[in-house]
């Protein structure tokens, strides 16, 4: 069966090669060439709307985009349907933030956009242009962990680690706004993240123990 689209094909792991290995080997762009070339757009258009000209549509094929990720400009070519998470994971080799539910329901993909946490799996990459995007890759300075990452390590706040990047981003966003949250405030700020391994107690401990977070 031919993969129905990019979303499905990524779930399809029959090759025997690990997905990450495959993606990294093929490299950015290779995976992008997707199945919908030649898709025709059936267009309800401005005529009906009775207005002059409708503004131009882009896509459905790949279009050039520029993202500002962790302070760096990233030029990619992706389809309008590509999410910010998939753009970074599949087209830019940045696999730090995880794709778990892909439905805005778990938080593993959490990034910080313009200072606020967002589900990158439920944000279109084209719509993330012009915004300040921060992902888990942007936190550590070389081999020095960000204070939140350090606190997670010290509190042993992870088991399988799949939810961890998202939790760390949510904790960073919280602490940059509110360096001394109460337990209730911290719980509420971390509400949008789920951990199947049940590390909540230590995640909370890490978030509350972290010292010295300032946007810098």
């Amino acid at each position, binding site marked *: 069966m031919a993969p129905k689209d990019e979303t499905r094909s990524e779930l399809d792991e029959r090759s025997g090669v690990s997905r990450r290995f495959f993606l990294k080997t093929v490299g950015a762009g290779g995976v992008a060439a997707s199945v919908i070339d030649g898709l025709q757009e059936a267009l309800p258009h401005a005529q*009906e709307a*009775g207005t002059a000209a409708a503004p131009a549509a*882009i896509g459905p094929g790949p279009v050039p985009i520029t993202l500002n990720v962790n302070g760096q400009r990233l030029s990619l070519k992706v389809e309008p349907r590509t999410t910010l998470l998939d753009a970074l994971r599949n087209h830019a080799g940045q696999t730090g933030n995880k794709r778990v539910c892909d439905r*805005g329901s778990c*938080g593993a993909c959490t990034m910080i956009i313009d200072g606020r*946490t967002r*589900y990158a799996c*439920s944000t*279109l990459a084209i719509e993330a242009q012009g915004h300040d995007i921060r992902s888990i890759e942007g936190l550590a300075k070389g081999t020095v962990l960000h204070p939140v990452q350090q606190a997670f390590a010290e509190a042993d706040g992870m088991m399988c680690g799949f939810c961890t990047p998202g939790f760390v981003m949510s904790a960073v966003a919280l602490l940059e706004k509110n360096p001394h949250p109460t337990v209730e405030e911290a719980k509420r700020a971390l509400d949008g993240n789920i951990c199947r391994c049940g590390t909540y107690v230590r995640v909370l401990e890490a978030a509350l123990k972290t010292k010295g977070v300032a946007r810098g």
Partner: protein
Amino acid sequence: MKAFSYVDAANEKDALASLGTERNQVLAIGGGMDLLGMMKDYLVQPVRLVNVKRLDATIARTPDGGLRIGSAVRLIDLIEHADARRMYPALVELAEQVGTPQIRNAGTVGGNLNQRPRCWYFRNEEFHCLKKGGATCFSVNGENQFHAIFGEGPCHIVHPSNLAVACLAYGATFRLAGPSGAREVEAEQYFQMPDHNLYAENVLQPNELLTHVTLPAPMAGLKSAAYEVRFKQAHDWPLAFATAALVMEGQTVKSARIVMGAVAPVPWRANEAERALAGKTLSEETAGRAALAAVQGAQPMSRNAYKVRVARTAVTRAILKAGGMKVV
């Protein structure tokens, strides 16, 4: 999800010019928190999306002292708006309960009001139910513990929007813009029962957009609140909830608007409860009687009788909370 083309509309006029007349062919995208999920599950497969986040994203005072909220306002901005909180606390409290922080940071007012139902048969690609043009409502003989306790069907969804319920309680009107101009529709007239409109939940046409929510100036003596009952505190929709907007004179309720959520395919106005409360001194007893009246006509399904009790409790507590009384 299926590939689509994308229009980054700079304003209302451009957005309208990009829409079409066929349902679900061209869709507006706000925060995408609902829409992208629908598309990933192939429940809608639009050929084109139109960005409506550059429509009005401000909250402004109206000449009569109310507020006019642009559809592109994000839930987080509504939550952080001091006037909105002071004037319409139930609306802001309900916005605060939506989903998760990430959802509130992305979701817009327009998207919240127009989000599609969460019935799990509807959301599952494999179930071709009535609402999707099929022949059966699977909830009738199926898992209906979160379905409606009011309404005659044929579809038994509960309306998923938190904000919609407060909009009815405060007597909001919606501005709908289309190819031949704009119209104002009362929130109460906006949402439609499935026997009138099975394939959509409201009167909005495919070539129209909801651009503004106008809330009338709070009447003198207006006291309002919302009370939600949730199974989980986050990541979920309420089991049932209620909003009470009481016009008070001392401890006497002059008039009331009571609207329940998550109990029917539309926000459910409890006229009997409003009548039961009018002219009464507010107390636990009068609130409780009004709540009983509110659920009088409920017709639970095979697995959701418990919701009648939950809704009743939500109404009692919303009334007491609005009146500034202790809620146990």
